[in-house]
Protein backbone atom coordinates (compact mmCIF):
# COMPACT_ATOMS: atom_id res chain seq x y z
CA UNK A 1 0.00 0.00 0.00
CA UNK A 2 1.53 3.29 -1.04
CA UNK A 3 1.60 6.46 1.00
CA UNK A 4 -0.92 8.04 -1.41
CA UNK A 5 -3.39 5.21 -0.84
CA UNK A 6 -3.08 5.48 2.93
CA UNK A 7 -3.65 9.23 2.71
CA UNK A 8 -6.71 8.68 0.52
CA UNK A 9 -8.18 6.13 2.91
CA UNK A 10 -7.67 8.47 5.89
CA UNK A 11 -9.24 11.43 4.07
CA UNK A 12 -12.24 9.49 2.67
CA UNK A 13 -12.90 7.89 6.06
CA UNK A 14 -12.74 11.29 7.77
CA UNK A 15 -15.15 12.62 5.13
CA UNK A 16 -17.57 9.77 5.77
CA UNK A 17 -17.43 10.49 9.51
CA UNK A 18 -18.43 14.11 8.81
CA UNK A 19 -21.32 12.95 6.62
CA UNK A 20 -22.46 10.60 9.38
CA UNK A 21 -22.24 13.39 11.98
CA UNK A 22 -24.19 15.74 9.71
CA UNK A 23 -26.90 13.13 9.16
CA UNK A 24 -27.20 12.44 12.87
CA UNK A 25 -27.44 16.20 13.41
CA UNK A 26 -30.29 16.54 10.89
CA UNK A 27 -32.16 13.71 12.59
CA UNK A 28 -31.50 14.73 16.20
CA UNK A 29 -31.38 18.55 16.30
CA UNK A 30 -34.66 20.19 17.27
CA UNK A 31 -35.27 22.99 14.71
CA UNK A 32 -34.40 24.19 11.20
CA UNK A 33 -31.44 26.52 12.01
CA UNK A 34 -29.53 23.94 14.07
CA UNK A 35 -30.26 21.24 11.46
CA UNK A 36 -29.01 23.56 8.74
CA UNK A 37 -25.90 24.16 10.81
CA UNK A 38 -25.30 20.42 11.05
CA UNK A 39 -25.98 19.55 7.44
CA UNK A 40 -24.11 22.42 5.75
CA UNK A 41 -21.01 22.45 7.93
CA UNK A 42 -20.62 18.70 8.08
CA UNK A 43 -21.48 17.98 4.45
CA UNK A 44 -19.30 20.75 3.06
CA UNK A 45 -16.30 19.57 5.02
CA UNK A 46 -17.17 15.91 4.44
CA UNK A 47 -17.46 16.42 0.68
CA UNK A 48 -14.20 18.37 0.66
CA UNK A 49 -12.37 15.53 2.44
CA UNK A 50 -13.92 12.98 0.06
CA UNK A 51 -12.88 15.06 -2.97
CA UNK A 52 -9.35 15.48 -1.61
CA UNK A 53 -9.05 11.77 -0.83
CA UNK A 54 -10.27 10.78 -4.31
CA UNK A 55 -8.03 13.43 -5.88
CA UNK A 56 -5.00 11.65 -4.37
CA UNK A 57 -6.00 8.52 -6.30
CA UNK A 58 -6.94 10.33 -9.56
CA UNK A 59 -5.04 9.20 -12.63
CA UNK A 60 -4.91 12.56 -14.39
CA UNK A 61 -4.66 16.25 -13.40
CA UNK A 62 -7.93 17.00 -15.19
CA UNK A 63 -9.75 14.56 -12.87
CA UNK A 64 -8.24 16.38 -9.86
CA UNK A 65 -9.51 19.71 -11.21
CA UNK A 66 -12.98 18.22 -11.85
CA UNK A 67 -13.18 16.82 -8.32
CA UNK A 68 -12.20 20.15 -6.79
CA UNK A 69 -14.66 21.98 -9.09
CA UNK A 70 -17.44 19.66 -7.90
CA UNK A 71 -16.59 20.58 -4.31
CA UNK A 72 -16.52 24.33 -5.00
CA UNK A 73 -19.88 24.23 -6.86
CA UNK A 74 -21.44 22.11 -4.12
CA UNK A 75 -20.14 24.64 -1.54
CA UNK A 76 -21.77 27.52 -3.42
CA UNK A 77 -25.02 25.59 -3.89
CA UNK A 78 -25.19 24.43 -0.30
CA UNK A 79 -24.40 27.89 1.11
CA UNK A 80 -27.16 29.42 -1.05
CA UNK A 81 -29.69 26.73 -0.18
CA UNK A 82 -28.85 27.23 3.52
CA UNK A 83 -29.55 30.97 3.23
CA UNK A 84 -32.83 30.36 1.39
CA UNK A 85 -34.11 27.78 3.87
CA UNK A 86 -33.08 29.91 6.86
CA UNK A 87 -34.85 32.94 5.33
CA UNK A 88 -38.01 30.94 4.66
CA UNK A 89 -37.86 29.64 8.24
CA UNK A 90 -37.56 33.17 9.65
CA UNK A 91 -40.49 34.40 7.59
CA UNK A 92 -42.62 31.47 8.75
CA UNK A 93 -41.65 32.08 12.39
CA UNK A 94 -42.69 35.72 12.12
CA UNK A 95 -46.04 34.71 10.66
CA UNK A 96 -46.72 32.14 13.36
CA UNK A 97 -45.63 34.32 16.31
CA UNK A 98 -45.91 37.98 15.29
CA UNK A 99 -44.92 39.29 18.72
CA UNK A 100 -41.86 37.09 19.16
Amino acid at each position, binding site marked *: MTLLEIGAIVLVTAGAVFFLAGTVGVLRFPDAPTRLHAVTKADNLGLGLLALGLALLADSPSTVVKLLLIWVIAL*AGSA*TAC*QLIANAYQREEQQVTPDA
Partner: protein
Amino acid sequence: MLERGIDLVICVAILALAIRLVSGQDLFRSIVLFIAMGLMLALAWVRLAAPDIALAEAAIGAGLTGVLLIRAGQGQRMRGAVAAVAGAVSGGGPRRVVATAGSVGITAVFAVVMVFAVMGLPTEPNGLTGVAAANMEASGVDHAVTAVLLNFRAYDTWLEIGVLLLAILGVLAIHRRYDCGGMRVEAPTMRVLSWLARVILPLAILTAGYLYWAGTHIPGGAFQAGAVVAAALVLLALAGSRGVAALRALPLAALLVLSFAAFLAVSIVASTGNGMLHYRDGTAGLLILGLELTIVISTAVTLAALFAGAGPRAGAGEPRRDAATERPKTL
Protein backbone atom coordinates in the same frame (compact mmCIF):
# COMPACT_ATOMS: atom_id res chain seq x y z
CA MET B 1 -20.04 -8.97 -2.00
CA LEU B 2 -19.63 -5.26 -1.29
CA GLU B 3 -21.12 -4.39 -4.69
CA ARG B 4 -24.10 -6.67 -4.01
CA GLY B 5 -24.58 -4.84 -0.70
CA ILE B 6 -24.54 -1.43 -2.41
CA ASP B 7 -27.05 -2.63 -5.01
CA LEU B 8 -29.31 -3.98 -2.29
CA VAL B 9 -29.18 -0.68 -0.36
CA ILE B 10 -30.10 1.24 -3.54
CA CYS B 11 -33.01 -1.12 -4.32
CA VAL B 12 -34.40 -0.95 -0.78
CA ALA B 13 -34.00 2.84 -0.70
CA ILE B 14 -35.89 3.26 -3.99
CA LEU B 15 -38.75 1.04 -2.81
CA ALA B 16 -38.93 2.68 0.63
CA LEU B 17 -38.92 6.19 -0.89
CA ALA B 18 -41.58 5.18 -3.44
CA ILE B 19 -43.88 3.75 -0.78
CA ARG B 20 -43.49 6.79 1.47
CA LEU B 21 -44.03 9.27 -1.32
CA VAL B 22 -47.34 7.77 -2.44
CA SER B 23 -48.64 7.04 1.06
CA GLY B 24 -48.04 10.52 2.53
CA GLN B 25 -50.69 13.23 2.78
CA ASP B 26 -48.28 16.17 2.73
CA LEU B 27 -47.81 17.20 -0.91
CA PHE B 28 -44.52 19.05 -0.37
CA ARG B 29 -43.00 16.15 1.54
CA SER B 30 -44.02 13.78 -1.27
CA ILE B 31 -42.32 16.00 -3.86
CA VAL B 32 -39.09 16.08 -1.81
CA LEU B 33 -39.22 12.28 -1.51
CA PHE B 34 -39.81 12.09 -5.28
CA ILE B 35 -36.63 14.09 -5.91
CA ALA B 36 -34.70 11.84 -3.51
CA MET B 37 -36.08 8.78 -5.32
CA GLY B 38 -34.97 10.25 -8.66
CA LEU B 39 -31.41 10.59 -7.35
CA MET B 40 -31.45 6.99 -6.10
CA LEU B 41 -32.76 5.89 -9.52
CA ALA B 42 -29.86 7.76 -11.14
CA LEU B 43 -27.48 5.80 -8.88
CA ALA B 44 -29.24 2.58 -9.93
CA TRP B 45 -28.66 3.45 -13.60
CA VAL B 46 -24.99 4.09 -12.83
CA ARG B 47 -24.78 0.64 -11.22
CA LEU B 48 -26.43 -0.82 -14.35
CA ALA B 49 -23.62 0.76 -16.41
CA ALA B 50 -26.01 3.17 -18.17
CA PRO B 51 -24.47 6.59 -17.41
CA ASP B 52 -26.44 8.27 -20.21
CA ILE B 53 -29.76 7.37 -18.58
CA ALA B 54 -28.33 8.22 -15.14
CA LEU B 55 -27.48 11.73 -16.35
CA ALA B 56 -30.94 12.19 -17.88
CA GLU B 57 -32.68 10.82 -14.77
CA ALA B 58 -30.73 13.08 -12.41
CA ALA B 59 -31.11 16.21 -14.56
CA ILE B 60 -34.66 15.80 -15.89
CA GLY B 61 -36.30 13.10 -13.77
CA ALA B 62 -35.18 14.31 -10.36
CA GLY B 63 -34.08 17.91 -10.93
CA LEU B 64 -36.40 19.63 -13.36
CA THR B 65 -39.45 17.44 -12.76
CA GLY B 66 -39.04 18.06 -9.03
CA VAL B 67 -38.88 21.81 -9.58
CA LEU B 68 -41.93 21.61 -11.87
CA LEU B 69 -43.86 19.68 -9.23
CA ILE B 70 -42.96 22.17 -6.47
CA ARG B 71 -43.96 25.01 -8.77
CA ALA B 72 -47.25 23.34 -9.67
CA GLY B 73 -47.87 22.55 -5.99
CA GLN B 74 -47.77 26.27 -5.24
CA GLY B 75 -50.86 26.75 -7.37
CA GLN B 76 -54.11 27.05 -5.44
CA ARG B 77 -55.96 24.85 -7.93
CA MET B 78 -53.51 21.96 -7.48
CA ARG B 79 -53.72 22.12 -3.70
CA GLY B 80 -57.49 22.01 -3.88
CA ALA B 81 -57.47 19.02 -6.21
CA VAL B 82 -55.05 17.11 -3.97
CA ALA B 83 -57.08 17.93 -0.87
CA ALA B 84 -60.21 16.72 -2.66
CA VAL B 85 -58.60 13.41 -3.67
CA ALA B 86 -57.09 12.92 -0.22
CA GLY B 87 -60.46 13.66 1.36
CA ALA B 88 -62.19 11.14 -0.90
CA VAL B 89 -59.69 8.41 -0.08
CA SER B 90 -59.26 9.03 3.64
CA GLY B 91 -62.95 9.66 4.18
CA GLY B 92 -63.65 6.11 5.28
CA GLY B 93 -66.68 4.00 4.47
CA PRO B 94 -67.31 2.08 1.24
CA ARG B 95 -65.47 4.65 -0.85
CA ARG B 96 -62.27 3.94 1.04
CA VAL B 97 -62.72 0.20 0.61
CA VAL B 98 -63.20 0.61 -3.14
CA ALA B 99 -60.17 2.92 -3.40
CA THR B 100 -57.94 0.56 -1.43
CA ALA B 101 -59.12 -2.56 -3.25
CA GLY B 102 -58.74 -0.82 -6.60
CA SER B 103 -55.20 0.38 -5.97
CA VAL B 104 -54.10 -2.96 -4.51
CA GLY B 105 -55.68 -4.79 -7.48
CA ILE B 106 -54.05 -2.57 -10.10
CA THR B 107 -50.67 -2.85 -8.33
CA ALA B 108 -50.99 -6.65 -8.15
CA VAL B 109 -51.80 -6.91 -11.87
CA PHE B 110 -48.83 -4.72 -12.77
CA ALA B 111 -46.56 -6.69 -10.43
CA VAL B 112 -47.54 -9.99 -12.08
CA VAL B 113 -47.05 -8.52 -15.58
CA MET B 114 -43.64 -7.12 -14.54
CA VAL B 115 -42.51 -10.46 -13.10
CA PHE B 116 -43.42 -12.24 -16.36
CA ALA B 117 -41.75 -9.51 -18.41
CA VAL B 118 -38.51 -9.75 -16.40
CA MET B 119 -38.57 -13.57 -16.49
CA GLY B 120 -38.94 -13.36 -20.28
CA LEU B 121 -35.87 -11.15 -20.70
CA PRO B 122 -33.02 -12.84 -22.57
CA THR B 123 -30.09 -13.76 -20.32
CA GLU B 124 -27.60 -13.23 -23.16
CA PRO B 125 -27.38 -9.89 -24.98
CA ASN B 126 -29.03 -10.46 -28.33
CA GLY B 127 -31.52 -8.68 -30.51
CA LEU B 128 -30.14 -5.58 -32.17
CA THR B 129 -27.01 -5.11 -30.01
CA GLY B 130 -24.80 -6.88 -32.53
CA VAL B 131 -26.35 -5.11 -35.50
CA ALA B 132 -25.83 -1.73 -33.84
CA ALA B 133 -22.23 -2.54 -32.92
CA ALA B 134 -21.50 -3.75 -36.47
CA ASN B 135 -22.80 -0.51 -37.99
CA MET B 136 -21.05 1.93 -35.64
CA GLU B 137 -18.57 2.80 -38.40
CA ALA B 138 -21.33 4.19 -40.61
CA SER B 139 -23.24 5.93 -37.82
CA GLY B 140 -21.21 9.14 -37.88
CA VAL B 141 -20.49 9.07 -34.11
CA ASP B 142 -18.35 6.97 -31.78
CA HIS B 143 -20.79 6.54 -28.87
CA ALA B 144 -23.29 3.71 -29.27
CA VAL B 145 -26.12 5.44 -27.37
CA THR B 146 -25.88 8.56 -29.54
CA ALA B 147 -25.68 6.38 -32.67
CA VAL B 148 -28.93 4.66 -31.69
CA LEU B 149 -30.72 7.86 -30.63
CA LEU B 150 -29.71 10.09 -33.52
CA ASN B 151 -29.14 7.62 -36.35
CA PHE B 152 -30.48 4.07 -36.08
CA ARG B 153 -33.61 5.10 -34.19
CA ALA B 154 -33.68 8.82 -35.01
CA TYR B 155 -37.37 8.46 -35.80
CA ASP B 156 -38.11 7.58 -32.14
CA THR B 157 -36.14 10.57 -30.93
CA TRP B 158 -38.07 12.79 -33.32
CA LEU B 159 -41.35 11.54 -31.85
CA GLU B 160 -40.05 12.14 -28.30
CA ILE B 161 -39.30 15.72 -29.25
CA GLY B 162 -42.83 15.86 -30.62
CA VAL B 163 -44.21 14.72 -27.24
CA LEU B 164 -42.24 17.47 -25.47
CA LEU B 165 -43.55 19.98 -28.01
CA LEU B 166 -47.16 18.87 -27.48
CA ALA B 167 -46.73 19.21 -23.70
CA ILE B 168 -45.49 22.78 -23.87
CA LEU B 169 -48.11 23.70 -26.49
CA GLY B 170 -50.75 22.45 -24.06
CA VAL B 171 -49.33 24.64 -21.28
CA LEU B 172 -49.15 27.64 -23.58
CA ALA B 173 -52.70 27.04 -24.78
CA ILE B 174 -53.93 27.12 -21.17
CA HIS B 175 -52.06 30.37 -20.64
CA ARG B 176 -53.18 31.64 -24.05
CA ARG B 177 -49.73 33.00 -24.75
CA TYR B 178 -47.35 32.15 -27.52
CA ASP B 179 -44.41 34.37 -26.59
CA CYS B 180 -42.09 34.60 -23.59
CA GLY B 181 -44.45 37.13 -21.97
CA GLY B 182 -45.79 34.26 -19.90
CA MET B 183 -42.37 33.86 -18.32
CA ARG B 184 -42.91 35.01 -14.76
CA VAL B 185 -39.92 36.64 -13.11
CA GLU B 186 -39.80 36.84 -9.33
CA ALA B 187 -39.03 40.15 -7.67
CA PRO B 188 -35.32 40.24 -6.87
CA THR B 189 -35.12 39.45 -3.16
CA MET B 190 -32.16 37.31 -2.23
CA ARG B 191 -28.76 38.74 -3.09
CA VAL B 192 -27.15 35.32 -2.48
CA LEU B 193 -29.49 33.63 -4.93
CA SER B 194 -28.94 36.13 -7.71
CA TRP B 195 -25.20 35.87 -7.09
CA LEU B 196 -25.36 32.09 -7.45
CA ALA B 197 -27.53 32.37 -10.58
CA ARG B 198 -25.01 34.70 -12.18
CA VAL B 199 -22.10 32.41 -11.30
CA ILE B 200 -23.92 29.26 -12.41
CA LEU B 201 -25.11 30.48 -15.83
CA PRO B 202 -21.70 30.57 -17.57
CA LEU B 203 -20.74 27.30 -15.86
CA ALA B 204 -24.02 25.72 -17.00
CA ILE B 205 -23.47 26.85 -20.60
CA LEU B 206 -19.91 25.46 -20.48
CA THR B 207 -21.17 22.17 -19.03
CA ALA B 208 -23.94 21.97 -21.63
CA GLY B 209 -21.46 22.57 -24.44
CA TYR B 210 -19.26 19.84 -23.00
CA LEU B 211 -22.15 17.36 -22.67
CA TYR B 212 -23.30 18.16 -26.22
CA TRP B 213 -19.84 17.61 -27.66
CA ALA B 214 -19.04 14.61 -25.43
CA GLY B 215 -22.20 12.85 -26.61
CA THR B 216 -20.53 11.98 -29.91
CA HIS B 217 -17.94 9.72 -28.28
CA ILE B 218 -18.62 9.26 -24.53
CA PRO B 219 -21.76 9.39 -22.33
CA GLY B 220 -23.48 12.75 -22.56
CA GLY B 221 -25.81 14.19 -25.11
CA ALA B 222 -28.20 16.85 -26.25
CA PHE B 223 -31.12 16.23 -23.87
CA GLN B 224 -28.85 16.33 -20.81
CA ALA B 225 -27.16 19.48 -22.13
CA GLY B 226 -30.55 21.13 -22.68
CA ALA B 227 -31.64 20.21 -19.15
CA VAL B 228 -28.52 21.85 -17.68
CA VAL B 229 -29.19 25.11 -19.55
CA ALA B 230 -32.86 24.94 -18.53
CA ALA B 231 -31.84 24.57 -14.88
CA ALA B 232 -29.71 27.71 -15.12
CA LEU B 233 -32.63 29.58 -16.74
CA VAL B 234 -34.96 28.44 -13.94
CA LEU B 235 -32.43 29.64 -11.35
CA LEU B 236 -32.21 33.02 -13.10
CA ALA B 237 -36.01 33.33 -13.15
CA LEU B 238 -36.21 32.45 -9.43
CA ALA B 239 -33.49 34.94 -8.59
CA GLY B 240 -35.46 37.68 -10.33
CA SER B 241 -32.73 38.39 -12.81
CA ARG B 242 -33.46 41.09 -15.34
CA GLY B 243 -31.65 38.89 -17.85
CA VAL B 244 -34.63 36.54 -17.93
CA ALA B 245 -36.96 39.46 -18.55
CA ALA B 246 -34.91 40.05 -21.67
CA LEU B 247 -35.92 36.55 -22.79
CA ARG B 248 -39.44 37.88 -23.32
CA ALA B 249 -38.25 39.39 -26.56
CA LEU B 250 -37.31 35.95 -27.90
CA PRO B 251 -39.54 34.28 -30.48
CA LEU B 252 -40.61 31.49 -28.10
CA ALA B 253 -42.64 29.49 -30.59
CA ALA B 254 -39.75 29.38 -33.07
CA LEU B 255 -37.32 28.08 -30.44
CA LEU B 256 -39.81 25.48 -29.21
CA VAL B 257 -40.45 24.00 -32.67
CA LEU B 258 -36.83 24.43 -33.83
CA SER B 259 -35.77 20.85 -33.13
CA PHE B 260 -38.94 19.20 -34.45
CA ALA B 261 -38.71 21.32 -37.59
CA ALA B 262 -35.03 20.46 -38.04
CA PHE B 263 -35.81 16.73 -37.95
CA LEU B 264 -38.61 17.33 -40.46
CA ALA B 265 -36.28 19.29 -42.74
CA VAL B 266 -33.57 16.61 -42.54
CA SER B 267 -36.09 13.88 -43.27
CA ILE B 268 -37.30 15.73 -46.36
CA VAL B 269 -34.13 17.28 -47.74
CA ALA B 270 -31.11 15.33 -46.49
CA SER B 271 -32.35 11.75 -46.42
CA THR B 272 -31.99 9.11 -49.08
CA GLY B 273 -34.93 7.50 -50.79
CA ASN B 274 -34.60 4.51 -48.47
CA GLY B 275 -36.65 6.08 -45.73
CA MET B 276 -37.13 9.05 -43.46
CA LEU B 277 -34.00 10.12 -41.57
CA HIS B 278 -31.88 7.68 -43.56
CA TYR B 279 -28.80 9.91 -43.85
CA ARG B 280 -26.76 9.96 -47.05
CA ASP B 281 -23.28 8.41 -46.91
CA GLY B 282 -20.71 10.61 -45.19
CA THR B 283 -23.23 13.23 -44.00
CA ALA B 284 -24.35 11.44 -40.82
CA GLY B 285 -21.77 12.97 -38.45
CA LEU B 286 -22.49 16.55 -39.45
CA LEU B 287 -26.26 16.07 -39.56
CA ILE B 288 -26.24 14.48 -36.08
CA LEU B 289 -24.22 17.38 -34.63
CA GLY B 290 -26.64 19.84 -36.21
CA LEU B 291 -29.75 18.01 -35.02
CA GLU B 292 -28.29 17.67 -31.50
CA LEU B 293 -27.64 21.41 -31.34
CA THR B 294 -31.30 22.08 -32.14
CA ILE B 295 -32.27 19.52 -29.46
CA VAL B 296 -30.14 21.40 -26.87
CA ILE B 297 -31.84 24.70 -27.70
CA SER B 298 -35.41 23.37 -27.93
CA THR B 299 -35.09 21.21 -24.79
CA ALA B 300 -33.65 24.08 -22.74
CA VAL B 301 -36.34 26.55 -23.83
CA THR B 302 -39.15 23.98 -23.51
CA LEU B 303 -38.20 22.92 -19.98
CA ALA B 304 -37.73 26.53 -18.84
CA ALA B 305 -41.08 27.48 -20.40
CA LEU B 306 -42.77 24.49 -18.70
CA PHE B 307 -41.44 25.82 -15.40
CA ALA B 308 -42.74 29.30 -16.17
CA GLY B 309 -46.07 27.80 -17.22
CA ALA B 310 -46.40 25.57 -14.15
CA GLY B 311 -46.47 28.51 -11.76
CA PRO B 312 -49.25 30.93 -10.99
CA ARG B 313 -50.45 32.58 -14.17
CA ALA B 314 -48.69 35.77 -15.09
CA GLY B 315 -50.96 38.72 -14.49
CA ALA B 316 -53.36 36.70 -12.36
CA GLY B 317 -54.34 38.57 -9.25
CA GLU B 318 -55.14 37.04 -5.88
CA PRO B 319 -55.22 33.25 -5.79
CA ARG B 320 -58.80 32.27 -6.42
CA ARG B 321 -60.76 29.81 -4.37
CA ASP B 322 -61.43 26.87 -6.56
CA ALA B 323 -64.54 24.76 -6.80
CA ALA B 324 -62.50 21.75 -5.71
CA THR B 325 -61.46 23.36 -2.39
CA GLU B 326 -64.99 24.34 -1.54
CA ARG B 327 -66.65 21.01 -1.96
CA PRO B 328 -64.08 18.29 -1.48
CA LYS B 329 -66.65 15.71 -0.41
CA THR B 330 -68.48 15.56 -3.71
CA LEU B 331 -65.48 14.73 -5.85
